[in-house]
């Protein structure tokens, strides 16, 4: 019995990890297959195949994947900068003075449950009028709106951990409010700022709804590009997986960065440690 228990535990852990990893690994496996090995109905050929770069060649010849990756990077990064720039002061105000008595924070949070189509619908025609359709700036504004609530909420939690006495001490030393925020408070919560920024970056990178509605060719992001492999006749699984395997690399890097912080970070202050 004593030796059986750890064995059972490890079998369970391996099963769970396999279940979560396999579909992701399958993207990379499929990316390196011949077309014949993707659409085969023999299990043996599906699992044991000779690798090929056919799909990658297709992607680089027939699609604008490089441009899409660059577009995604430009829009995600600039939107993240904008979100952090505006979410930081707002979160600080909520945490220090409870501005708006909690109602305003709840309204901010509720942007996440606000139907995305409501905003998209209202601005679809505005964008057409003023020529923001299919531009980097236009999509960036939507990414910014989509993430500011979540960033504010996360940062609010980090700011609350700073004692007000510390700020008062700095102000007695002659610091202005702006200086206190810039030179004392933000350096203290820098790890929190970094985590929030990475979260926002990942959300931006993965965003699809606004991208597909507001971009066509010029500012097309990689997510929209991926959806394009679903043509009118069939889905091109191979090229799609090849493109996806490149598109998920930044998120894998982010995952590696975040896994250290995430375990202790997600209690939302609901359980006292």
């Amino acid at each position, binding site marked *: 019995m004593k030796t059986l228990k750890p064995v059972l535990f490890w079998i369970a852990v391996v099963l769970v990890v396999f279940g979560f990893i396999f579909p992701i690994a399958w993207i990379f496996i499929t990316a390196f297959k011949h077309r014949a090995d993707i659409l085969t109905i023999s299990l043996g050929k599906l699992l044991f195949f000779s690798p090929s770069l056919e799909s990658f060649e297709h992607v680089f010849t027939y699609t604008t994947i490089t441009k899409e990756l660059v577009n995604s990077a430009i829009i995600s990064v600039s939107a993240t900068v904008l979100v952090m720039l505006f979410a930081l002061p*707002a979160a600080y105000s909520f945490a220090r003075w409870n501005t*708006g008595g909690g109602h305003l924070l709840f309204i901010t949070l509720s942007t996440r449950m606000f*139907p995305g189509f409501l905003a998209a619908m209202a601005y679809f025609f505005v964008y057409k009028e003023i020529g923001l359709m299919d531009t980097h700036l236009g999509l960036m504004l939507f990414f910014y709106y989509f993430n500011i609530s979540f960033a504010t909420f996360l940062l609010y939690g980090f700011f609350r951990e700073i004692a007000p006495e510390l700020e008062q001490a700095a102000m007695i030393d002659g610091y202005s409010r702006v200086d206190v925020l810039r030179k004392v408070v933000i350096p203290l919560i820098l790890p929190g700022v970094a985590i929030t920024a990475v979260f926002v970056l990942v959300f931006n990178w993965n965003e699809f709804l606004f991208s597909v509605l507001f971009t066509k060719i010029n500012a097309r992001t990689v997510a929209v590009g991926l959806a394009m492999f679903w043509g009118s006749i069939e889905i091109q699984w191979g090229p799609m997986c090849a493109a996806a395997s490149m598109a998920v690399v930044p998120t894998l890097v982010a995952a590696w960065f975040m896994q250290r912080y995430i375990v202790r970070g997600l209690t939302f202050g609901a359980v006292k440690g």
Partner: protein
Amino acid sequence: MVTYVAEAEAPILKKKGFWDVLLSEKYFRWTLLIPLLVTLAVFMLYPMFFSIYYSFNTFAPGKPTIFVGLENFRYVLHDVRVFWPALFAMFKILVGCLAVELVFGMLVALLLNREFKGQNVVRGLCLLPLLISPLVVSLVWNYLLQYDYGLVNQFLNGIFHLPKISWWGTNMAIVSIIFLTSWQWTPFSIFVLLAGLRSLPRDAFEAATVDGASNWYTFRRLTLPMLSPLILIIVMLRTMWLMRIFDPLYATTRGGAGTETLDWVIFRVVFMYFDLGQGSALSIISLFITIILAFIVFRLLMRALGVIK
């Protein structure tokens, strides 16, 4: 800017400028909020008034806008073949995903709630589905669950000699959607619950063990009540997000096979038929349902946290 502040701290000497007011101790908290408030006004208030306005009008590109009162609402609510099935599909996905994510998330959290070799690697790997784009996840599951050449059917058929299942057919499509969405979001439950489990007080559990309580009894009477605020947070956040489900539908059934949710109907009506009137009416209804649901869970959460009685 610093000089302005210095001036603000020496009052009355001269008339205060615009910046002095913004940076003064009294208004600084609101100054910090200006960008956020502008954002909310631009992206929430304007679309809301826009939708309310158009929900009382008919509108199609190139045609004049005509006031029709509640006609749009009457029409969409009486469109029995679209509205009610969509609402029903949305609730099926909501309940199905919440159930799977909470049960499975709790099981894995309990499994991982101990010190073992390589625990960080295991946790990091379990986090991955959450970070990968929902669109990519849905596309790859679409491929894995294909009838002929999908790996899952070939595996079930080839190894266990089970009949192949039409995963994207009329009956199973919604189950497949629930499955792949839960697959992606179970890690979220795992990590929230794991963080909760690790911060529980140890002495209560030791006392229970000394008293000879069974594992099941300890879990039901100690662990579950202590974790209830976190479970409610998961339910609240996931309810908000699940009602907005879009990418999995776009990447698999595209609203077919009985998987059309309320948001998908809006997408179809507005961006394929460009019928703003009906689309606005549907958006308003969808917004109301979300607010009511989120509010109920929010009240429950506040009660569990002891903020209200």
